[in-house]
């Protein structure tokens, strides 16, 4: 362990830890827009600069390791001045539509401009303007809002390992895009949406969550109902309806990752085609019935079958899609209520 002092607070950190991480672990928030613990270091936004006693150069805390006896200051006037300049530059070259931006409320740029009091960009030059890429059904790209932090590029290369997007050009024309600047769709992208999660601004948006303000939703953590990987995520609930999915970094299997199914499936919950009443077939047609009528009919029929032909004339298919509790009760019903072991499920599909 290494001992150092940050903002007058004595802390201990593991050798090989970056100053930024050590500070965060101790509740000291150093701002950044391009750093993510799970991704390689980019050191591009320079917002995480700090002052270290005995050196007159500012250093980027996301890429400098802790050293024994180090004395670090994270909010000195010099540091704050640099941060303001960077934010001013970024915001000057950014659309001024925060009021209607989908990201408002959980935007990294907005948060930091608020924290450092940037009201308006002071550089009144040309602001970049790109067409919005919205041809696929789940994700929207507005490169005018991109601050070139490169998180999406790294997530796609390092976590999703697909390499759909990369930087092109330099200087003012620099942007993040796909090969040949094609729109994003299923041919060049896995639609996992991990870049959306990584993006600090409104440049990448989950279309399903458009029109939903982040503070309006209640989040309920649950387990994905699709493949056997068992990812966790948060169902976003507004007014008693599931409106979409966001990842939950505490998930033991998947962390912040999700695949296309986990992220975008949730509209099926509100499908018009859901069954809402018991149905009984009469003369070859389904008619809606009360629970009482349907349950009575099923119980009578099954009881009659059991008592006439024996329990083994009844079989049951349980479900690999239902929860353990449902499966437990299902096999118990077959064994205890009907006296048969004729229970199986599609384990084999």
């Amino acid at each position: 362990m290494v001992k150092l002092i940050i903002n007058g607070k004595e802390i201990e950190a593991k050798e090989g830890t970056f100053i930024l991480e050590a500070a965060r672990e101790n509740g000291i928030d150093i701002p950044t827009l391009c750093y993510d613990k799970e991704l390689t270091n980019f050191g591009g936004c320079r917002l995480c600069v700090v002052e270290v006693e005995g050196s007159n150069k500012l250093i980027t805390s996301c890429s400098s390791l802790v050293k024994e006896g180090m004395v670090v200051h994270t909010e000195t006037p010099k540091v704050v001045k640099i941060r303001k300049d960077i934010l001013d530059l970024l915001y000057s070259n950014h659309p001024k539509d925060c009021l209607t931006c989908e990201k408002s409320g959980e935007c990294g740029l907005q948060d930091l401009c608020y924290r450092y009091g940037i009201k308006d960009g002071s550089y009144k030059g040309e602001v970049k303007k790109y067409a919005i890429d919205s041809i696929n059904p789940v994700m929207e790209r507005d490169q005018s809002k991109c601050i070139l932090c490169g998180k999406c590029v790294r997530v796609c290369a390092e976590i999703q390992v697909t390499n759909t997007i990369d930087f092109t050009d330099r200087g003012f024309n620099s942007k993040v895009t796909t090969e040949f600047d094609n729109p994003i769709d299923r041919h060049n992208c896995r639609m996992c949406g991990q870049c959306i999660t990584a993006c600090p601004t409104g440049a990448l948006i989950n279309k399903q969550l458009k029109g939903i303000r982040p503070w309006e939703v209640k989040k309920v953590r649950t387990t994905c109902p699709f493949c056997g990987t068992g990812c966790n995520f948060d169902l976003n609930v507004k007014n008693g309806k599931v409106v979409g999915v966001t990842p939950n970094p505490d998930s033991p299997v998947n962390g912040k990752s999700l695949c296309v199914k986990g992220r975008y499936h949730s509209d099926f919950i509100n499908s018009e085609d859901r069954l809402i009443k018991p149905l009984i077939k009469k003369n070859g047609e389904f008619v809606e019935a009360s629970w009482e009528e349907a349950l009575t009919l099923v119980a009578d029929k099954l009881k009659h079958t059991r008592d006439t032909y024996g329990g083994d004339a009844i079989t049951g298919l349980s479900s690999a899609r239902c929860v353990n509790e449902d499966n437990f009760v299902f096999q118990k019903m077959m064994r205890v209520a009907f006296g048969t072991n004729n229970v199986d499920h599609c384990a084999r599909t």
Partner: protein
Amino acid sequence: MTNAIGEVEDNEVLFIIGSNATEAHPIIGNKMKRAARKGNKLIVIDPRRTELAEMATLWLPLKSGTDAALVNGLMHIIVKEGWHDKEFIEERCTGFENVLEVIEEYTPARVAEITGISEEILYETAKLYTSTKKAGIFYTLGITEHTTGTANVMNLANLAMLTGHLGLENAGINPMRGQNNVQGACDMGALPNTYPGYQSVTNEKSQKFFEEFWGVKLNPNNGLRIPEMLDEAAAGNVKAMYVMGEDPVLTDPDANHVKKALSNLDFLVVQDIFLSETAKLADVVFPATCYAEKDGTFTNTERRVQRVRKAVEGPGECRLDWSILAEVAKRVGAKGFDYRNSEEIFEEIRATTPSYRGMTYKRIDQKGLQWPCPTEEHPGTPYLHKGVFPRGKGLMVPVEYEEPAELVCEDYPILLSTGRMLHHYNIGTRYSKKLDSIRPHELAEINPVDAQKMGISEEEVVRVSSRRGSILTRVTITEKVKPGMMFMTFHYKESPVNELTNSAFDPVTKTAEYKISAVKVEKVGAEEAAAFM
């Protein structure tokens, strides 16, 4: 899986056989790709040129259905070269001699002939797999959905035991379960031969335990498995069936036979969230709740039991699955179904299932727990078989290669295999407009060589027929499949591939041979194509 998903990235060698993980288990697939990115080595054994095949150190596009021969051939080389783990075999396994005898016959030359993989690549594969202790085997349906599925799984166990790749971190044999809770449904005893926790229904001791616990006399005989249920229904011996949340008409092989069997029942009850193809045949349909509307637990493929939490109320009058079942059970006179919530059921699961005994809703709240977890102090078990196997010594059972049940012939010259793809999951996801609009229809994969021969172009509608049925589908032309092969998914009811598939079953698990059916492909007239689209 014997090992945890978190270990995947640090396997130095990943032996991936018949698993298109980046489509079927995307997040595990990503971890495999990350392993490759770090410099770890992938051996990918798959007739299709999958995304993982692209990243593999060794890609073995073997002939479909020849897995057993391949694995025998690898073991042959390993033993000949002395790369096996003699100590592990000596201390922890029995039956080695029997395996030895069988693999003796699988010379590289013969195996190359059967599988279509060169001797040189076989040799390199054997060498790479045995080059480190941190080598795990990963497989999914590709290997179990053959008539020889059980044998294939046993043979992979043989390979892992032969080389001592078990009971260690970053190694093991890792089946990746298809549906989200297959592991849990099996653990819960939704099987004709076991009570919860794999306690055999024919074992007197377990029988007695459950009879005492539930206070009833239990049936001492194994029950019917799905294909037998269907056969017996068709024969008129099974009179009634209760189906919860499954759609065998669409997902089981030889759909026409399934429909016939279900139609022959006196009474069919289906409990589901949508009016599935199976539900359409029912006498009574109960509306159930989906996962977002209920509390409970799922058990994933690494045996991790995790919480499912109710986020919203279900629509209309739908009810919780377990509460419908409990109500039916009570009405036919059964006792012990007075549950007030899912946690009470979980408490009964704990009490009857030794590997779940140490779990509570409270303990699994944040991170879940991996079974076995026998006591409330036990931290759960990330990887299995450390030190000992549950049955003492690991039994090695030799496996002979058998030809697939159905081979191509002049009339049906193309080998059709089926599987999953990224954007859909069985059939439920089709109800998500978002997901459906990414991939709204089937695109059967066919090699450019065959497409050219038949004069078929991209996204053209064709007729695909087997000995059992005939369907229409659009095609996509791709080198992912070899000439003479075709690949389709079972996600689309408009192109119900299981009308074509073969219902020849594995004799032990009764898994159908979804992977291989012989088919023919024909062009269709413009009118028929237009009507289909």
